């Protein structure tokens, strides 16, 4: 209450200053008048009375001063004076101000931009009621290829759902699938999600209009209903609620619209939602993410313990690894992949900011030295030391806030650039990334800290300074302290820049190695075309095979095509079909499971995969012929070391009957199925005409090797597929651009770090240049004396460069240690590059040292031009 009243009346006094002052004047005048009248009653003249009152009661002006000083708002007033003074001084040295503001703007702007992304991606909660009770439940197999992807296989999910105690609701859902929307304007491929019926209950989000899914609507064969997202409803259906009950066509299937979701709801990055029919058959089971809402009073740890018990009771199939029970915050579904990158970026930009601070602090020291006299005079005239320190800090914060403002502008422009640079779809919830109150608070905060940080150095110099020394014109003698401080600042700048440069160098080298890594096939001049055959049209394996055969026939005879082939899951895509098998006459090595692609004749030639032994599949390897397979090199080597694999037999069945044995007809090179950064996967290929399960046939990618640029055959491929089935949605991309997408992320990391490192390098060079040219300026007289005494240009140059070398080598030694630590953090992003890669370290140190030396050479060179006579007259 008291405080509030004081603040209120203080603010009143501040904003109605004139009125307050007038009232005070009048009150004081009345007071003194009364006193004078009182005296005059006893017969004194007015003049005498006035003098007596002044003696007794004090001067009105002094009283006013005392009253002013007792007000808290007067502090604000002096601060305002300080600020105006600071701005005036800064305006007087525009060069210094511009360099300092620009440096700070770069540092603060980069930090603001990265924080904007971090804030939007990592810090904001998911937009659901009590989102902190939502978790991903995961039973991913330990050490499996998708270990890092939280999920539960359909079979485990059904078992878990029935006995779960810890969660109110659990729901399985798909992520990252798309469907073709037709019949509502132009055909459009939209992201869709298939979800089990408890999904919306778990998220506690209901359709805005209409209803959600009913229990049982996720039974196989029942789910021809759909929920629309608010945005697509607006864009494609004009926000018309008459759409309820009508049907829309998705992937050729008519689905009745039963509801519209509220605006902003798009989890998991979908525009429409359909019931997920979970089908479990003997061998194949999808693994999908599962979301659960914890019951109140149950901790994530308890839920995990329960899940662990459950996982312990699950039978392990052959070749299956034990499952890891995990209960992870739901947000990790989106941010788990990007968090490490963001942490690295945050670290990198804070280093940039530190360098900027060191730079400006160093500039400030130069100025403080130049202003030694001014400060000495002010302090001799009675300005307290704290008052002077406050003045300097006001100047530095005024600078840092100007820099912060400019940095904010940079961030406005930099955030979209940052997002544009990022690989598509890599940054989740981009709509949440914007400059909001938190970002502004962050910028304000770092501007304040920055201002105090670099303002402190000169302020301490003021505190240490002896007034008499400065006044007696020997100012430059006390700058010895400055020299040391500035040297230390330059050393730390070089060290920090080295850390960033090393990080960027390692990432760049890793990216270049990755880009040139051999995937096991030849990616140039290959066009790919992918189809997802719909259950509604293609019910049997034979129907699917007929589609593939017709498409292949057409593609093979396409002008410009060398050879065409097909595979169910393309290498370097995001799918892998791992499985076990039996070997005739011996035991399969335990835990040796293989990728089982289903391919067409011509596939290996189209992809440029080397045939090592035997022959490729042909059209004659069909359902009536004897079963054949081809094996990859590592399969052959593992199963039959030193022997010819051709003619050996394996089976995909657990208990093969005589007709189930498949003969190896050829061996091919290993290739990377999962990612360029991963090692090749052993594979056993089957001809598509001998595969009878629709699971391996419905998703198929056709690959065409072309004579020239692959894009030239795209329209021809499109026409052929239209001829086979005009309603079948397809997607066409060249193999090159597919690979480019898979390495977009390391490319992004390398680019961004390189960008930060360049900023750091530039700032450091400016900093080193500044330190040395200042030191030259300070030593002009000394240099003059040396030259008058016969020192040659070379001697002067050597003397100055020696000093620069000491600073540079100290910075590199210290920075080298820091770089090793930073590189260790980067280790998980590096491909075939050791964090302590000597070549990178040496190259980076050399670049930094030579640029710093070049920066020092300019002022050193200038020093040799000093005229001894002028220098000696200097004082």
């Amino acid at each position, binding site marked *: 209450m008291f405080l509030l009243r*004081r603040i209120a009346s203080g603010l009143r006094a501040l904003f109605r200053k004139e009125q307050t002052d007038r009232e005070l004047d009048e009150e004081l005048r009345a007071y003194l008048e*009364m006193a004078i009248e009182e005296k005059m009653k006893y017969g004194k003249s007015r003049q005498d009375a006035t003098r007596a009152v002044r003696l007794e009661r004090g001067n009105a002006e002094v009283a006013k001063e005392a009253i002013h000083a007792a007000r808290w708002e007067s502090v604000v007033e002096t601060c305002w004076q300080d600020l105006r003074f600071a701005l005036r001084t800064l305006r007087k040295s525009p060069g210094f101000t511009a360099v300092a503001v620009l440096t700070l703007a770069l540092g603060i702007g980069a930090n603001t931009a990265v924080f904007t992304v971090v804030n939007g991606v990592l810090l904001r909660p998911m937009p659901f009621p009590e989102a902190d009770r939502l978790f991903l439940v995961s039973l991913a197999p330990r050490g499996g290829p998708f270990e890092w992807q939280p999920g539960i296989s359909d079979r485990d999910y059904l078992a878990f759902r029935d006995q779960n105690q810890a969660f109110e609701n659990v729901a399985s859902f798909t992520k990252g699938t798309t469907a073709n929307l037709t019949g509502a304007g132009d055909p459009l491929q939209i992201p869709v999600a298939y979800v089990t019926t408890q999904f919306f209950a778990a998220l506690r989000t209901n359709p805005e209009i209409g209803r959600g899914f009913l229990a049982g609507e996720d039974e196989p064969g029942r789910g021809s209903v759909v929920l629309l997202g608010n945005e697509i409803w607006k864009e494609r259906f004009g926000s018309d609620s008459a759409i309820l009950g009508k049907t829309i066509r998705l992937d050729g299937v008519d689905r009745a619209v039963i509801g519209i979701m509220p605006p902003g709801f798009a989890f998991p990055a979908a525009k429409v939602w359909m019931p997920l029919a979970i089908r479990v058959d003997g061998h194949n089971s999808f693994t999908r993410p599962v979301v659960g809402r914890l019951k109140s009073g149950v901790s994530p740890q308890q839920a995990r313990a329960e899940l662990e018990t459950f996982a312990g009771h699950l039978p392990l199939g052959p070749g299956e690894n034990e499952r890891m029970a995990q209960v992870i915050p739901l947000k990790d579904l989106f941010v788990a992949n990007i968090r490490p990158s963001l942490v690295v970026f945050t670290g990198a930009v804070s280093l940039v900011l530190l360098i900027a601070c060191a730079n400006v602090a160093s500039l400030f020291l130069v100025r403080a030295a130049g202003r030694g006299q001014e400060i000495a005079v002010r302090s001799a005239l009675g300005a307290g030391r704290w008052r002077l320190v406050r003045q300097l800090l006001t100047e530095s914060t005024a600078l840092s806030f100007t820099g912060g403002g400019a940095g904010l502008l940079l961030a406005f422009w930099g955030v979209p650039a940052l997002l544009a640079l990022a690989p598509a779809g890599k940054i989740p919830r981009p709509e949440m990334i914007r400059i909001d109150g938190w970002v502004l608070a962050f910028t304000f905060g770092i501007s304040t800290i920055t201002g105090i940080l670099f303002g402190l150095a000169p302020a301490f110099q003021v505190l240490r300074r002896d007034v008499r020394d400065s006044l007696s014109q020997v100012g430059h003698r006390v700058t010895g302290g400055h020299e040391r401080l500035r040297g230390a600042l330059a050393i730390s700048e070089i060290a920090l820049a080295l850390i960033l440069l090393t990080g960027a160098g390692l990432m760049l080298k890793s990216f270049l190695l990755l880009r040139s890594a051999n995937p096991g096939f030849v990616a140039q001049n290959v066009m790919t075309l992918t189809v997802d055959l719909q259950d509604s049209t293609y019910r049997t394996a034979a129907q699917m095979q007929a589609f593939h055969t017709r498409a292949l026939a057409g593609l093979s005879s396409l002008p410009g095509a060398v050879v065409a082939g097909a595979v169910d899951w393309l290498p370097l895509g995001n799918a892998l079909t791992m499985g076990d098998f039996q070997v005739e006459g011996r035991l399969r090595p335990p835990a040796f499971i293989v990728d089982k692609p289903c391919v067409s004749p011509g596939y290996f030639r189209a992809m440029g995969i080397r045939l090592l032994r035997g022959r490729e599949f042909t059209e004659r390897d069909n359902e009536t012929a004897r079963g054949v397979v081809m094996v990859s090199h590592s399969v052959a080597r593992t199963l039959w070391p030193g022997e010819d694999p051709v003619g050996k037999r394996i089976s995909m069945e657990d208990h093969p009957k005589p007709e189930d044995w498949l003969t190896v007809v050829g061996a091919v090179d290993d290739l990377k199925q999962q990612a360029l950064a991963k090692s090749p996967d052993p594979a056993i290929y089957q001809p598509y005409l001998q595969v009878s399960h629709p699971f391996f046939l419905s998703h198929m990618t056709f690959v065409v090797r072309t004579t020239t640029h692959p894009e030239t055959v795209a329209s021809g491929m499109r026409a052929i597929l239209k001829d086979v089935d005009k309603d079948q949605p397809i997607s066409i991309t060249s193999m090159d651009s597919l690979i480019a997408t898979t390495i977009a992320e390391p490319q992004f990391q390398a680019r961004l770090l390189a960008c930060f490192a360049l900023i750091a390098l530039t700032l450091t060079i400016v900093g080193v240049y500044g330190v040395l040219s200042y030191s030259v300026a300070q030593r002009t007289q000394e240099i003059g004396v040396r030259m008058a005494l016969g020192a040659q240009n070379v001697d002067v140059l050597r003397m100055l460069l020696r000093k620069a070398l000491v600073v540079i080598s100290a910075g590199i030694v210290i920075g080298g240690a820091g770089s090793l630590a930073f590189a260790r953090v980067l280790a998980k992003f590096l491909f075939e590059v050791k964090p302590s890669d000597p070549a990178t370290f040496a190259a980076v140190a050399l670049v930094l040292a030579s640029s710093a030396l070049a920066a020092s050479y300019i002022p050193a060179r200038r020093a040799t031009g000093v005229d001894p006579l002028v220098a000696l007259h200097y004082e």
Partner: protein
Amino acid sequence: MAGNSTDLIQGTLDMLILKTLALESMHGYGIGVRIEQMSKGVFHVNAGSLFVAFQRLQRAGLIKSEWKATENSRRAKYYALTEQGRKRLNSETREWGRQVAAIARILEAS
């Protein structure tokens, strides 16, 4: 600027002003004169300290002010005790009594 002795005097002055206003509302000069009279000239208050104290007390909500005409039909700012001020005066008077008694005991003991 603020030593212990000034603190004591400041606190005392506040209390004396409150006491003066407890009888009736009054303008600045009147308060000053009344304090001098009541202390039989022991305390002499100058304008600076007096008005700083008014400002402090008013901001703390212990007194309120109002422009009125004096008996000589001059405009002056009259100060009056608020309810809070009255409470504060009571508690401070009690505290003062306690301290004085304690100090007296100490001085007598030595």
